[in-house]
């Protein structure tokens, strides 16, 4: 394969030239106008085949291709001395590629995986041999083209476009009937997709939270007493008891609870007055939906000095001390508040479900 005779050699040229039988070097042909049919210029396909989709005279027939002029590509590189040097470089490149290819196979056999360190080494070995192999082949090929092949520039003529054979433009009835037919035919596969999923119904309006359902500390999955908060500050992610592993439920029902210092929470500033009249907090602990009302990312960052809840996706910012109303960013609505109380054992529980849909807006959501 690495035989140096692989390049274009004088001896090879005769048959190769046949492929280019009617090409001519640039200088002579550039300005020639194709004076109708007979006068073939450089590399143009027979005029007949170019002009019409309907009738293509067979080669040799009147109007077909003329007898090719025997023109050949230049046989030898421009500078034989530098070509000899380049030849050696090309061979060297291909030898490197050979070795790198063998190296890749060797690396595959030598380097095992199954641990982070092993994978690191295996990846380095496999990747660098593979990269080197391709790179060496590429460099060799480029040098081959640029230094070994003679420089050549050829010109061929363009032909004007246009075939009216389809009659598409000429027969409006056919055209319009076709366009009309595409509508139902294109609708059919869309109709077919109906059973991909259930209809939304009112599913987006509720979550799994129910009266008396305990709030579990997510991860530990333990119920929470108000007394467990030693001091105001942090934010805890909580999940409804019984659904701690149910992503489909949690994607809507995830809740954050925040413990405030006394007299920090401002209930009156709730953006939807009249909706939230009850004091749903317990011992200055307030619970909000964790699902951002913008596009549904978990609003997971909390800055306890400013009481800001920040959604890291698009930076919607909510003021936790004032009903989680939006103070910056693209979200339009406050995070819904989960009504909360304590049960007989003193654990935090939900009073009932959210009174409005959680998460991103949707068409049927309505004004609530």
């Amino acid at each position, binding site marked *: 394969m690495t035989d140096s005779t692989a390049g274009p050699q004088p001896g090879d040229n005769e048959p190769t030239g046949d*492929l280019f039988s009617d090409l001519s070097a640039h200088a002579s042909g550039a300005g020639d106008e194709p004076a109708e049919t007979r006068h073939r210029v450089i590399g143009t396909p027979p005029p007949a085949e170019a002009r019409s989709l309907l009738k293509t005279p067979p080669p040799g027939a009147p109007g077909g291709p003329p007898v090719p002029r025997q023109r050949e590509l230049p046989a030898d590189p421009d500078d034989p001395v530098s070509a000899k040097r380049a030849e050696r470089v090309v061979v060297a490149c291909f030898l490197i590629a050979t070795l790198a290819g063998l190296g890749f196979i060797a690396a595959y056999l030598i380097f095992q995986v199954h641990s982070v360190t092993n994978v690191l080494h295996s990846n380095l070995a496999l990747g660098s041999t593979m*990269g080197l192999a391709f790179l060496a082949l590429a460099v060799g090929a480029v040098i081959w083209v640029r230094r070994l092949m003679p420089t050549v520039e050829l010109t061929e003529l363009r032909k004007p476009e246009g075939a009216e054979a389809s009659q598409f433009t000429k027969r409006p009835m056919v055209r319009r009937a076709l366009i009309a037919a595409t509508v139902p035919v294109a609708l059919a596969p869309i109709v077919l997709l109906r059973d991909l999923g259930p209809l939304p119904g009112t599913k987006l309006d509720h979550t799994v939270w129910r009266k008396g359902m305990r709030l579990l500390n997510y991860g530990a999955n333990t119920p929470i007493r108000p007394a467990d908060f030693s001091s105001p500050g942090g934010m805890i992610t909580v999940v409804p008891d019984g659904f701690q592993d149910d992503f489909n439920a949690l994607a809507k029902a995830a809740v954050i609870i925040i413990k405030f210092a006394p007299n920090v929470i401002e209930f009156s500033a709730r953006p939807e007055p009249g909706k939230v009249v009850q004091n749903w907090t317990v011992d200055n602990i307030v619970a909000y939906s964790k699902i951002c009302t913008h596009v549904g990312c978990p609003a997971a960052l909390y800055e306890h000095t400013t009481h800001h809840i920040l959604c890291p996706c698009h930076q919607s910012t909510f003021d936790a001390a004032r009903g989680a109303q939006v103070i910056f960013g693209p979200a339009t609505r406050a995070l819904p508040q989960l009504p909360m109380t304590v049960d007989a054992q003193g654990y935090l529980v939900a009073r009932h479900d959210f009174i409005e849909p959680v998460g991103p807006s949707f068409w049927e959501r309505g004004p609530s």
Partner: protein
Amino acid sequence: MAIDKALAGTGSWLDERFHGAKGFRTFFRKIFPDHWTFMLGEIALYSFVILLLTGTFLALFFQPSMTEMVYHGSYVKLDGVHMSKAYASTLNISFDVRGGLLMRQIHHWAANLFVAAILVHMLRIFFTGAYRKPREVNWLIGIVLFTLALLEGLFGYSLPDDLLSGAGLRITQGVLQSIPVVGTYLSFFLFGGEYPGNDIIPRMYILHVLLIPGLFAALIGAHLFIMFHQKHTQMPGKGRTNKNVVGAPMYPYFMAKTGAFFLFVFAACALAATFAQINPIWIYGPYNPLAISAGSQPDFYMGFLEGSLRIMPAWQWVIFGHTFAFNVFIPALLPLGLIMTGAAFWPFIEQWITGDKREHHLNDRPRNAPARTAVGMAAVSFYGVLWLEGANDVIAQHFDIALYTVTEIARVAVFAVPILAYIITKRICLGLQRKDLHLLEHGVETGIIRQLPNGEFIEETRPLGEDEVAKLALPQPERLPLPVGVSGGEDDVPPPGMRGSIGRVRARLNRIVTETVPMNGHGANGHGNGHGPDGQGAVSSGDQAHAAIGSSGREAGGDSTGGDGSPTS
């Protein structure tokens, strides 16, 4: 060795087998003009091939399933963690299949390269005017391919079901749900119910590995076939006209070059995958709707959509009990719609404005179409502002700017920067045209000062070479006067196409779009200093040059494009 002998005489070997096969001969002698920007599309094509190869390997091991399982594999840090089979099998590909990580990373790098190459390729086509008649259809196919590439990429990087891509998927769902009237239904049908459901990974998988690649193959095939049939455009240069193609033949030059180029692209992806980690999903962890990491960023090509979501003010209306979530669906659809629809309609808008319905095979240098270049730069800067805003948290952190300030700045910049870009670009283009004109008129300054016998000092100039003249003296984008009288006196009765308010808009746009440096002959500038004997030589060194800066741009255009005679239809 028989193989070697056969290959050594490839030409004869092929010829002996396909002798006289006309298709082959046409194919082999196809002329490919050369310009470095012509390789951009090739990068996209070869990235696609690499994606097919590596993707097939990955599909042999990947399990597109959302079934929950507990992981006990080689990556001990996640031992005992609940995760989907999709995520677990991605871990297995990374840690338990030899070469698996390499293939994953090559696949991901190639995907980024694919979209990037398409993007830059489209810019090249736009700025050189290569989309003009008769290539509008290929331009439209390109836009569809670009859109599909975004979708394919989004689906692809969501498949491992990791925490980072899960956030992206959640955002996608939120956006889908916000679409008026049909949004909720679309979301339920795509996800098989409420988010996240158990269907989305297998559904995206089949779209990612079958449907979209199939569309790609068909459209790329059509793209290449049309290009092949219409022949390449070429950049202006000596001997290149609107009626010919100058370059090297397909065989052996282009085949060898492009083959080498494929290897380069593959090598680049392989080396990137070896030395630059990408998408380390084991660090992100499995998807969990309750968790998110700060600084989450999508792949670069989704960045402008992310930025446009971040930039949008909180607008929402409730009308007749229905929610219009402008804050979500406007930023999700408008920028993409503006850029894609604008790009799709541009060739036809330009045709309407300029009245130029002739075929164009000779590309413009961007400076010679100042308005088009300026519009392109405005679009690029619009995209750029959104893209940067997509990383506003990262920018805020690295440059120590308040997060909200970054967004506020971007809200202004998204309108201001494109306008500025338009104005500045247009001025730069006109300035470059003046420079070209100067070169044509006066030649290249040599720095030599000569004293004439009468004591006058003149500056020596070197006339431009033939190649340079051919490049510079190319006609301005041939200005076709609209079917008018546009510039005529007020007494003229405007032709039908130019009447009424639309006609006036058209005339006004025409003036803006065709604004170029007036080439009113070489004496126009009036400073005769350069017009010593040498200076004159420079001007008349090529008839083409002379013609192009002659009094009528239109005639000049006709001259040096070889009398573009295709009738307007």
